[in-house]
């Protein structure tokens, strides 16, 4: 009996469908990936999209309202009210160093992303393409460290940072994020398949030093993964709260800390709080619109978990 997929390959989709009908098999949507979705699928997906997006829009709706109105109308109408800019101005005027927090978050996120990507690519290159004693054992060790809960170390880390006099300074947040086990693992996986060993050999034969080979052969080959890892590190850093909350103080906050301060200080005026929350979300939503495609591809290629 000729199989349906084989017929599809040899004689085209139409013939395959006819054969399937003759054999009493479900056509079209019978197979996992090839099936053609019905409108129900799109309805489900549209609902999911609505659930994903509504809380963000809800933030904006409340942020464009005022406290009295929110109390009277807990279910906001879908049309935003006109107070958003006014609320934004009040957020910046509030005594929570909002501007400073934006700059701080940006500085931390950019430095840790660049550094993580660089060191992770370097290590990933070594693990995937270079021969050295203990390679496999060290890699397994790195992967095992991913399972250690970060919370476990905060107390001694706090003691160390205080001794160094770093407590309250951005460097105390930046240094622990300079390179991650996840990044190294991810880059190793990527370069293993993306970088042909012949290319490295060719560069070596041409007289390149090891670091030169890395710089002009491995790094260009890693470019797509570099973009993805950079994005994930950026998002993780931007949304990180626990450690900055412990080590920094409210005079020198990161953005999530500023949002927390806003809630603690102005919880009676929820339009103000929500305007601040909306401001903290906007940069990443813009980033998401521009580069969400890469994030999706990144998760699907590497099964990532930050």
């Amino acid at each position, binding site marked *: 009996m000729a199989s*349906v997929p084989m017929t599809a390959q040899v004689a085209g989709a139409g013939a395959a469908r006819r054969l399937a009908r003759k054999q009493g098999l479900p056509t079209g949507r019978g*197979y*996992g*990936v*090839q*099936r053609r979705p019905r409108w129900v*699928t*799109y309805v*489900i997906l549209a609902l999911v999209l609505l659930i*994903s997006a509504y809380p963000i829009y*809800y*933030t904006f709706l409340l942020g464009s309202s005022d406290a009295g109105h929110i109390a009277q109308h807990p*279910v906001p109408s879908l049309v935003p009210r006109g107070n958003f800019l006014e609320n934004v101005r009040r957020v910046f005027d509030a005594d929570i160093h909002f501007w400073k927090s934006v700059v701080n978050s940006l500085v931390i996120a950019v430095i840790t992303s660049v550094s993580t990507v660089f060191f*992770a690519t*370097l*290590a990933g290159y*070594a693990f995937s393409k*270079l*021969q*050295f004693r203990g390679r496999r*054992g060290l890699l397994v060790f*790195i992967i095992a*460290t991913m399972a*250690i*809960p*970060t*919370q*476990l*170390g*905060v*107390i*001694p880390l*706090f003691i*160390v940072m205080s001794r160094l006099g770093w407590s309250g300074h951005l460097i105390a947040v930046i240094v*622990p994020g300079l*390179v991650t*086990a996840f990044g*190294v693992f991810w880059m190793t*996986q990527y370069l293993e398949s993306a970088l042909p060993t012949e290319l490295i*050999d060719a560069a070596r*034969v041409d007289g390149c*030093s090891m*670091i030169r080979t890395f710089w002009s052969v491995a790094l260009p080959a890693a470019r797509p993964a570099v973009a993805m890892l950079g994005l994930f590190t950026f*998002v993780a850093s*931007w949304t990180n709260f626990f450690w900055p909350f*412990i080590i920094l103080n409210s005079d020198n906050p990161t*953005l999530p800390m500023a*949002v927390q301060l806003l*809630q603690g200080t102005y*919880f009676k005026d*929820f339009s103000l709080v929500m305007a601040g*929350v909306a401001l903290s*979300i906007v940069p990443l939503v813009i980033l*998401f619109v521009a580069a*969400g*495609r890469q994030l*999706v591809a990144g998760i*699907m290629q590497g*099964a990532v*978990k930050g």
Partner: protein
Amino acid sequence: MATIAPDAPVRPAQRDERAPRPPRSPWRQRLSRWDVKVSPYLYISPFFLLFAVIGLFPLLYTAFVSVHQWDTIGGQGDYTGLKNFVDVLHQPHFWVSLRNTFSIFLLSSVPQVIMAILLANVLNANLRAKTFWRMGVLLPYVVAPVAVGLIFGQIFGDRYGLINSLLNSIGIESIKWHSDVLASHAAIATMVNFRWTGYNTLIFLAAMQAIPTEVYEAAVVDGAGRWRQFWSVTVPMLRPTVIFVVITSTIGGLQIFDEPRMFDQTGQGGSSRQWMTTTMYLYELGWGNQHNFGRAAAVAWLLFLIILVIGILNFLVTRRIASAGPGRGRGRRREPRPDAPATLDAQGAPGTERLGMLTPSTPDREA
């Protein structure tokens, strides 16, 4: 396997094409050999240096702190043996925090994994604008947990909340989202689910696309309908991925802090600590009124051990459940690619399961 040998003889053909190079001096050769030997270690050293300072050392030092009297400001005190552990285990708040953590964890991870698999199955079709829909499920991931906590704190507001207002408008009484224990846990679990379901959906989707079509063909020939295919082919094939997702969400879920911290403005976990998690308790011990680093360190170690035990338990249970699926015995292992004999399949080492799954062997079928 190609080794990078610096002193490999240069192939004659290649030499002919180039201008004659001066013969390498022995000194340069030695330098080059040294370069080859040392470079790999140099390249991986940043991670290990950093890990030693911010990972390994704190881990051991936490143990040291936990057996001392230790004030957050005053610093190290007397050696007290296991007193901190005993004290912590006698605190009702510790047990309350554990109950809350587990309750929130179960309420978030179980529905999340189920929803993610179902949603991935919906996405695993020949959709129009598929990147758009995939981005749609991922959108919540870019919202910081702190922001999620605040937004849902309002949505689940007891008096002016969105949900209660909607419930009232259809004649159902308000739910006490903040004062009731289980309701507050459900609200916090919803925040976690909001942020992570889409992310896990994409992981499952990737795994689904790696399932060979032939398996489905065989199922169809055997007369399996769509549901039967989903249950008997897709779900068992996802076994390694389920383990991966469950373990990572265990590590993250049992440390949950941001969302419950932001659920109200005081950040104490409710008037009777009804949603105070263990990490919130740790924070309160160390940086709250008590200023007791010794006890906080003890909590950190207890939490670590719990996560370890639950992680292993998860691993065993998930493996049992998933491999009990009809039609297949042990889990599918990816075959190593012929061109890469040295894949990371370390024998029985931690993370092997993950590695096997993560090796990007099957190219995206839609590419």
